[in-house]
């Protein structure tokens, strides 16, 4: 898959954080996510959304992120994306 553009990555990280797949970004340190954490979060979101859990921010994943949805998080903020449901 083509590498995602910078703005997609930033949209993705903000989206993942908003809906509970990444810990909320720490306003003080701006807490950068490691690539591995980002990939795990994407995979968890893909799995929850019924997509193939590739861990890559592909077109289908970006499209799902743009789908109208409920504001509530999918995972509790405290639960790391990797928790087994």
């Amino acid at each position, binding site marked *: 898959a083509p590498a995602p553009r910078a703005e997609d990555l930033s949209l993705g990280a903000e989206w993942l954080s908003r809906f509970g797949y990444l810990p909320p970004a720490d306003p003080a340190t701006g807490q950068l996510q490691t690539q591995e954490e980002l990939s795990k979060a994407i995979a968890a979101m893909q799995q*929850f959304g019924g997509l193939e859990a590739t861990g890559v921010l592909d077109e289908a994943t970006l499209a799902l992120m743009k789908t109208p949805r409920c504001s509530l998080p999918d995972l509790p903020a405290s639960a790391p994306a990797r928790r087994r449901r």
Partner: protein
Amino acid sequence: QTLAPTKWNKRNLSWRVRTFPRDSALGRDTVRALMYYALKVWSDITPLNFHEVAGSAADIQIDFSKADHNDRYPFDGPGGTVAHAFFPGDHHAAGDTHFDDDEAWTFRSSDAHGMDLFAVAVHEFGHALGLSHAAAANSIMRPYYQGPVGDPLRYGLPYEDRVRIWQLYGVRESVSPTVQLHTPEPKEPPLLPESLDNRSSIPPRKDAPHRCSTHFDAVAQIRGEAFFFKGKYFWRLNRDRHLVSLQPAQMHRFWRGLPLHLDSVDAVYERTSDHKIVFFKGDRYWVFKDNNVEEGYPRPISDFSLPPGGVDAAFSWAHNDRTYFFKDQLYWRYDDHMRRMDPGYPAQSPLWRGVPSTLDDAMRWSDGASYFFRGQKYWKVLDGELEAAPGYPQSTARDWLVCGDQQVDGSDTAGTTGADGAHAPPGQHDQSRSEDGYEVCSCTS
């Protein structure tokens, strides 16, 4: 289920649409009806009961808001996030449900455009009852909008969602595979747009009793109005003794919280001590505040020191402000203020000479007199008297329910007039105007 489940500890939940979509094609009645049906989806299968209220103390406050609306979950304009709801709990926002007023809310429109309000409302009320998002493919609790879910009158929850809500609240008796209960649904919930314009052509209900040829299970004066109960229906007369409608109303749709399988009531009266309304059926009773049942009911009638077997009639006598219970040939006198039975009861009926010893029900009326009903007749006892007024019994159907003499079955009191000239009470007309086929209705507010 990814979040620790929270749930309501009570079963009767009130709701209210506090703000409506501003420039939406959906009218307020439609929005309220859709909320009713979206809640009904959950109450149909659980022991929960929802009732709409007007005040701001509703458990589930429903708002249509835009952008930042002071709850830390701002909306983001058209698309994106479209709604959210708060889980049950003790905080003031528990259960509250917000819809993004920047969305084009639709009902019964094609998938292509707009956001189907019913589908989103069912999802959000799942949250308001304690469910979190689910990954299951066809669950209504999937976080992503998946278009309309079909006709609100026929929609049923997917199995996954049923199991999850049953884990929180258990199963409603009527749907439990083990309990064979005939629980017909109240069939006339709020109307939805298509049928709004032909509302007036709804034919009278097949199984509804006819007011002119029946006797009544219970009769009560409630907040100055008269209610005549028969089976699962009731007729209502306003303070001027005008019949509000010839068609009976469905008891379950107005008196919220009565079990759906209750097919009639034995007696009803308004408690003078706090103006709550008490319904009796068999050995149980329910207390209503306004038209919503209070928590913790039904309770046993032994609370009144009444023996098992239920009551035939109940009413408060204006003369001494005591409540009288009647069963077969016996009657009891109860002090509602002290909440205790007066000593020396039961006594042999009747207390009032000329009144039959067994009754269907009794009530006090705004003229200060007491009225006793049995079969299709009634007796009047003037305030403070201990004897039925001369010229009684009279026909209940004719004098209270706007039935012409020819409609009144088998009445042997047609045409006589009580000594007090109260044959056709003020405001009533001998000749029922429904003869010419028009509804005889009066607006009470």
